[in-house]
């Protein structure tokens, strides 16, 4: 690891004042310290925001939820209102990584972690994302890589929190010392690799994520998230699905289907949503939605199994959200 200086801040204004000259924000430090130990990131200055009390906690408002980005994944997943009305978020935060990581990792850090690709995460490979013109995954080992919408970089979106927030139509509040606050919907937050391979999201280096807003779900909304890995716990998703259903009895008025480990940016499947909208949810309808989600899939040399896995993940999570099936024993614990 390189040597660096650390600025310990206890207020948002103090932290914003420090965000200049290549300084990097550290919250829980889970993803950032991994990258520094791997040698892929070598910041000269870290700004520790972990001790800013105003950025932590969950507010229930008439409009929905406002979550401080320093709220830990454990705190989000165990919050009674999140559990009862935003199950997709509670499930997503409660099944990431391991219990001890969830106690340290913040929701903001979960949303802002870098992509998963073992070439990108190794200092030995200078790839497209690091300013070169080559991707090692297409001709190399790509069993955990993307199957859709990958352009020149088939890395996968790692954030389970983003899968849930996209399903719930969340909005991120970004703050900077010079320009104040701006709101960015999560659907516009992440940058597709072909738009700019060296950007992961639209945040500027001098900006800080200061709040996560989630609108209150419509009456009759049910939701769920499930993650599938090779291991039952402590593993990255090979497929995961976030489902939000606005139900009228068993009739689905509106559906949102989101997927994480399929592409470099968390995505909604309009095809799967169309297969659910206006239908009575049955196992057959759920299965059709799962199949529809794979329209346009272009698996790489080693990950065609994901094209079979995602429809199962989506159909079983639709049935879980609709209350027609329990949590899948095959999904991550």
């Amino acid at each position, binding site marked *: 690891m390189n040597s660096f200086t650390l600025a310990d801040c206890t207020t948002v204004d103090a932290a914003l004042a420090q965000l200049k000259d290549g300084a990097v924000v550290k919250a829980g430090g889970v993803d950032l310290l*991994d990258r520094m130990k*791997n040698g892929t990131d070598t910041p000269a200055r870290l700004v520790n925001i972990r001790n800013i009390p105003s950025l932590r906690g969950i507010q229930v408002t008439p409009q929905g939820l406002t979550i401080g980005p320093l709220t830990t994944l454990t705190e989000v997943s165990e919050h009674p209102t999140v559990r009862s009305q935003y199950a997709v978020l509670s499930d997503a935060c409660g099944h990431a990584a*391991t219990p001890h990581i969830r106690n340290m990792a913040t929701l903001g850090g979960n949303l802002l972690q870098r992509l998963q690709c*073992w*070439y990108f995460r*190794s200092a*030995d*490979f200078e790839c497209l994302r690091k300013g070169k013109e080559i991707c*090692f995954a297409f*001709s*190399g*080992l790509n*069993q955990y890589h993307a199957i859709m919408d990958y352009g020149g970089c088939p890395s996968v979106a790692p954030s389970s929190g983003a899968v849930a927030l996209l399903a719930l139509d969340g909005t991120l509040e970004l703050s900077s010392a010079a320009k104040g606050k701006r709101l960015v919907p999560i659907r516009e937050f992440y940058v597709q690799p072909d738009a700019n391979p060296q950007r992961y999201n639209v945040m500027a280096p001098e900006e800080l994520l200061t709040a996560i807003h989630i609108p209150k779900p419509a009456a009759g909304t049910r939701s769920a998230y499930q993650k*599938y890995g*090779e*291991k*039952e*716990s*402590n*593993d990255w998703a*090979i497929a995961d699905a976030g489902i939000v259903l606005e139900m009228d009895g068993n009739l689905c008025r509106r559906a949102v289907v989101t997927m994480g480990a399929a592409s470099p940016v968390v995505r909604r499947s309009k095809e799967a949503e169309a297969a659910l909208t206006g239908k009575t949810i049955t196992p057959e309808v759920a299965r059709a939605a799962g199949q529809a989600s794979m329209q346009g899939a272009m698996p790489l040399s*080693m*990950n065609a*199994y994901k094209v*079979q*896995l995602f429809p199962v993940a989506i159909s079983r999570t639709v049935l879980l959200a609709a209350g027609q099936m329990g949590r899948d024993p095959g999904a991550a*614990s």
Partner: protein
Amino acid sequence: MNPNQVISQICGGVIQGISYTLFEHRHLDPNHGLMVNPDLDRYKIAGAYEVPEIEVQLTESYIGQSSTDASGIGEAAGIISAGAAIGNAFYNATGVRIRQLPMTPAVVLAALNQPQQSMEAV
């Protein structure tokens, strides 16, 4: 011989056997020869969730091949047999043989997608 130590040796062997049967893989990039999962994040080993209840039945036998009459047990009873036991259980459940480790979801799906093998062929 302390039976608890013997049981503990076998349990440890079974856990490592499950781990290499289902998870462990040293991924080497075919074009550069570098290991791409050189950490315990991507080099997967069995954790607490992946370990089932292990029941050990001891049968005493006299081997007599060392000056103390002691012999190794963890590798023989645990590590070596776990892969065979899981592979046979999979064959018993599905009629399909897997001859590749680790038996990841990708490997299992590929095996299930193969045309059914006949009993005589295995």
